[in-house]
């Protein structure tokens, strides 16, 4: 895992048209939502429709971009034979995975930093915008989790189109279908079962986990309602914080190590 490789990967990513389009799109949307919130609403700290839409932009767009770009990136390496070529060098698959991962994470962090800096710049002329630190940290966490997942998708895909298809499928599952399924189950089962189900499923969908983290970090768990009081208070205890870190770490480490395993098996074929 040397710096040269990571730089090379970054270079390739930045030069890709798709990444450039995504960057512009994200920056524009991010800034406009932030500006609307800043201009239309009085200065409030609570969970409003505007802060919800800012969160939703992150939850909607970032995973979409990451899942497609990351997965297609690896799949194209495999498709074009580049990965096969690399395998002939004395290079460990784990290193290859980590190189990809770090490059993707840095490029996406770059996009987010660009968006934030533009927002700060514009906001600086308009009396300062509110951009809480936990929001930035949440974005970092999101980048780390979803890039790991995108690598796994890429390693499983046969070619780039396949990677795109799986990526979009997983994305729609995480963002929309998952919630709809839970909501639908909720209409037939008793309320206490729905409550337990939601609490379990919250950990099994990284997007839900990040959304829950948002409420946890911004101390707005009251928004979720009394049914989730217990779990919210649990995650504020010392043990809870430990479990929280563990779950988050699993969401990063598990896809990464699975990627390595899958790629290793591929090479042996």
């Amino acid at each position: 895992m040397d710096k040269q490789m990571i730089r090379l990967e970054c270079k390739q990513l930045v030069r890709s048209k798709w990444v450039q389009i995504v960057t512009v799109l994200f920056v524009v949307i991010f800034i406009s939502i932030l500006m609307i919130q800043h201009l239309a609403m009085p200065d409030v700290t609570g969970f409003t429709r505007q802060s919800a839409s800012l969160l939703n932009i992150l939850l909607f767009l970032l995973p979409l971009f990451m899942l497609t770009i990351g997965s297609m990136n690896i799949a194209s390496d495999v498709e074009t034979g580049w990965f096969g070529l690399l395998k002939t060098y004395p290079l460990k698959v784990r290193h290859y995975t980590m190189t990809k991962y770090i490059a993707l994470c840095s490029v996406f962090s770059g996009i987010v930093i660009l968006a934030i800096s533009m927002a700060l710049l514009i906001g600086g002329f308009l009396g300062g915008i509110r951009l809480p630190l936990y929001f930035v940290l949440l974005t970092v966490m999101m980048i780390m989790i979803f890039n790991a997942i995108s690598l796994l998708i890429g390693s499983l895909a046969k070619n780039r189109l396949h990677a795109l298809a799986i990526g979009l499928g997983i994305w729609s599952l995480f963002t929309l279908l998952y919630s709809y399924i839970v909501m639908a189950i909720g209409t037939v089962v008793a309320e206490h079962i729905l409550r337990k189900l939601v609490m379990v499923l919250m950990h099994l969908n990284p997007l839900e986990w990040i959304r829950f983290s948002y409420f946890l970090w911004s101390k707005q768990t009251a928004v979720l309602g009394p049914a989730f009081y217990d779990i919210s208070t649990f995650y504020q205890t010392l043990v809870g914080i430990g479990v929280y870190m563990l779950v988050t770490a699993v969401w990063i480490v598990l896809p990464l190590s699975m990627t390595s395993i899958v790629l290793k098996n591929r090479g042996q074929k």
Partner: protein
Amino acid sequence: MKNKILALVTLAIVLVGCSEQSYEPKEINPETAICKICNMSITEMDFAGQIIFKNGDHDVYDDLGCLVEYILESGEDKIGAAYIKDAQDHTWIDVKEATYVYASDIWTPMNYGVLAFASKEQANQYLADQGTGKLLAYEDLLTFEWGIHTH
């Protein structure tokens, strides 16, 4: 992914399985509990009531009157069991087995003025001590005019 979904379904079934049990009264969390009918937070635990539904859900009520209002509104079909706190030792008793005492000067969270007792003897004892009041059975509660007395 398929395995994951399978695991989820198993988990859900286990969860459902866990909660199928007899209708035992549940503990009330004062931080989150509010009366299903009047929305008041349950600060006076000694007057609280609860209903355990046949599907395992449960609701809490701050006053016997609210609990009865819920039963009158929604019927008894879905109700597994209903409990009210005993006025003397503050343990849960089944509303159908309790004996009730009404007196206009008894304070309860909604001021409905009805207390529950585990046995008829205890209720009679309370009546004798207080001097005023009326003995009621569970059936009387369903036709009782709640809250009218104070106006």
